[in-house]
């Protein structure tokens, strides 16, 4: 009798346990079961924010759960990045990281995150840096600029969007490669630097493609050179620095990432969904309407880009002895 009871209990436990295992197995393959948050390290209305808000509804449709964009501005993106690094790696808290900004912060100071805290899902935005002047500038070509800079170093003022932000780094990399010196003038953001350029207060501005596409079309500014790997189809007549013999490439990447430790099946699902979103014609058409420089790179490609950028930036930091508070 006792033995039977024991056996019954044993059987019950076994059944319950197996049920539990099955349930857990089901849970494992089912993602997402609730809303997903995506953090952005800049204020609402900025370029990254707009990009995030473009991707979110498409990703939502693909995943079948709400995707909410949350803004965590501050410390040049570091607050958002460190929140992402510390988040529970369950696939419900994602964020956007950037090259070079997310990398350069770790070189510039004792950052509260490491690059290894992030798993890349895919790249959403890429646009290369370029050098612009006004149509009535004394510089008509990039050769004019280089010649003048060689003749009198530091005489040319070059506006950028802030100290050691991507535009400033692009300018520094260019000067380093060509062997010239500009007077780098810092502004807080690209907009005020462009106003200063249009007003004739500075000679040149280093910025990115999306900042000036419309201004080129309306003949407010002209592009002297791009820092892309090849000529940009938007400006077919503008040379790249590379083809002029100076291999300096710099651009701005915006990449969706998850915290390290997120289960692989979730990462796979997210990578697959993002790829579907970024290659859908509806998404591409909408981005084009908005003038967003979308450029999808798969996780493997993006990982390679980040590794390569990290090497380049590390070299720049040691070459130019750039400041570090570490």
């Amino acid at each position, binding site marked *: 009798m006792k033995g039977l009871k024991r056996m019954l209990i044993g059987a019950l436990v076994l059944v319950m346990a197996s049920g539990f295992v099955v349930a857990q197995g089901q849970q494992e393959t089912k993602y997402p079961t609730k809303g997903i948050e995506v953090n952005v390290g800049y*204020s*609402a*209305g*900025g*370029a990254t*924010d*707009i990009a995030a*808000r473009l991707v979110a509804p498409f990703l939502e449709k693909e995943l079948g759960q709400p995707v909410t964009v*949350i*803004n*965590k*501005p*501050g*410390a*040049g993106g*570091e*607050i958002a990045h*460190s929140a992402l690094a510390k988040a529970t790696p369950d696939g419900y808290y994602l964020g956007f990281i950037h090259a070079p900004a997310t990398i350069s912060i770790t070189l*510039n*100071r*004792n950052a*509260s995150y490491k690059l290894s805290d992030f798993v890349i899902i895919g790249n959403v935005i890429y646009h290369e840096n370029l050098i612009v002047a006004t149509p009535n500038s004394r510089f008509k070509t990039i050769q004019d600029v280089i010649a003048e800079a060689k003749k009198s170093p*530091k*005489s040319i*003022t070059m506006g950028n969007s*802030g*100290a*050691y932000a991507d535009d400033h780094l692009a300018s520094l990399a260019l000067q380093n490669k060509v062997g010239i010196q500009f*007077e*780098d*003038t*810092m*502004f*807080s*953001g690209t*907009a*005020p630097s*462009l*106003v*200063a350029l*249009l*007003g*004739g*207060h*500075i000679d040149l501005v280093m910025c990115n493609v999306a900042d000036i596409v*419309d*201004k080129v079309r*309306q003949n*407010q500014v002209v592009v002297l050179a791009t820092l892309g790997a090849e000529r940009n189809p938007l400006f077919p007549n503008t040379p790249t620095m590379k083809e002029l013999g100076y291999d300096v490439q710099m651009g701005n990447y915006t990449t969706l990432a998850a915290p390290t430790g997120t289960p692989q099946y979730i990462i796979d699902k997210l990578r697959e969904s993002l790829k579907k979103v970024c290659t859908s014609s509806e998404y591409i058409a909408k981005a084009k*309407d*908005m*003038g*967003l420089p979308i450029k999808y790179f798969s996780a493997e490609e993006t990982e390679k880009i980040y590794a390569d950028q990290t090497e380049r930036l590390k070299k720049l930091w040691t070459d130019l002895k750039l*400041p570090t*508070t570490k």
Partner: protein
Amino acid sequence: MSAFIQGCIMAFAPKTLFAILIGVMGGVIIGALPGLSSTLGVALLVPFTFGLDPVTAMGLLGGMYCSSIYGGSITAILINTPGTGAAAATVLDGYPMAKKGRAGKALYVSIVSSFIGGTFSTLMLLFIAPQLAKISLFFGPPETFMLSLFGITIIASVSGKDLSKGIIAGLIGLLLSTIGFDATTGYPRFTFGNINLYEGIPLVVAIVAFFSIPEVLMLVKNGSTKTEGSQTSGMIASDRKANMLSLKEVKTLIPIWLKSAIIGTFIGIIPGVGTPVACFVSYNEAKRSSKHPDLFGTGIIEGVAAPETANNAVEGGSFVPLLTLGIPGSAQTAVYLGALMILGIKPGPELFTRQGSLFYAIIMGLFIANLVMLLLGVWGIKYFEKLIQLPSTIMIPIILVFTVVGSFAINENVFDVFLMLVLGIIGYFMRLNGLPLAATVLAMILGPIGEEAMIQTISITHGQIWQLFTRPICLVLLVITILSVVMTARQHNNEKKASHKS
């Protein structure tokens, strides 16, 4: 001309009018809640503009923009808690008016002035936007630097009787404004390694900490069971007519409205200077030209009219670089640019030539938004002023909730709440010692603008900063600054002599 008529027709379409109404109503609430700025309000609405046609969408956003600037004055006047940086100067006379039981009147002056400022600057936008855009381009870093230097002299006019205490308070503000990234080197300064301080002290945190918390602590200390305003609340509630402006008052206000509207529009077109500066400059000008400057700060209508006209005038001005050059001059218009991008509108010189009707429709939308704001604001006064009829045992917790929620809301960062509380307690002790906190706030507004412009000036003049004086606008601003300092010194001397004699 046909483009103009077409634009008007687009703006007066029922769904556009409805969108404007929604935008204005939302804006008053967003503006009144501390921490929810007009920038955030517009940003929150942007997702709702997906799928709307451009004119309706811009009506919604325009309504939100102009009324959220007005909304900030409601809490500034009633509970000494400016909802936005734009309302910081409004507390100087608005709250004393409320304390005297004239909250209704202050709100009335505020809404009328906001309407006048907004309408004036929209008119300027309509008629001379391209010319104004050219002026905005004359303003390079050296001019901005000189303007902020002039702004510093305004400390004298918000200092009350004791100028030396005003200067001390101002210097404390300047020191606090150096916290955060150094603009040239990217080094974090005075942050104690805390990343939450990298971007400096957020303006709303400073304003709430220095205006609201000391006031709350004073209310607690004085142990009054009712706010002073409520003692006369019976009078305000019954005597609606007293809120209306008499002909004599209108006469004194007309020059202030006009000057503040011009100052606001002008500062609005200069990129990167911003609304709070325009308000303080207008307040200073109203006080300077007044026959009774010593009454400013005690709760007079001129002190409310000047900043409230200016802050809404900034809005039209700030649209000038956005719509004509395609470059946003402020955080609000940067969000606007984002919204325009989403709608597929490309602002810039082409907006006038190719999409003229759309340009006029956007501007007509702003006119309508200002009108709706006026009607809604006047109607709402009797409800808003009920707030201060509450006994202080209820008021104090409400203000505290506002301050905490507001500090959290700007960056959704709990650190900011603690920062606000610490600064608030410091502010309380400063106030006990008679240091004018408005001077501290003003210095915190101007510090970063001036520092950045100075560094840029040094950079673009290659270190030869004396080149400043070869620029005409700089020279004019320099003369105004010197005059302002000399006049303040003389005035204080005269007052001292007068007090010695008596």
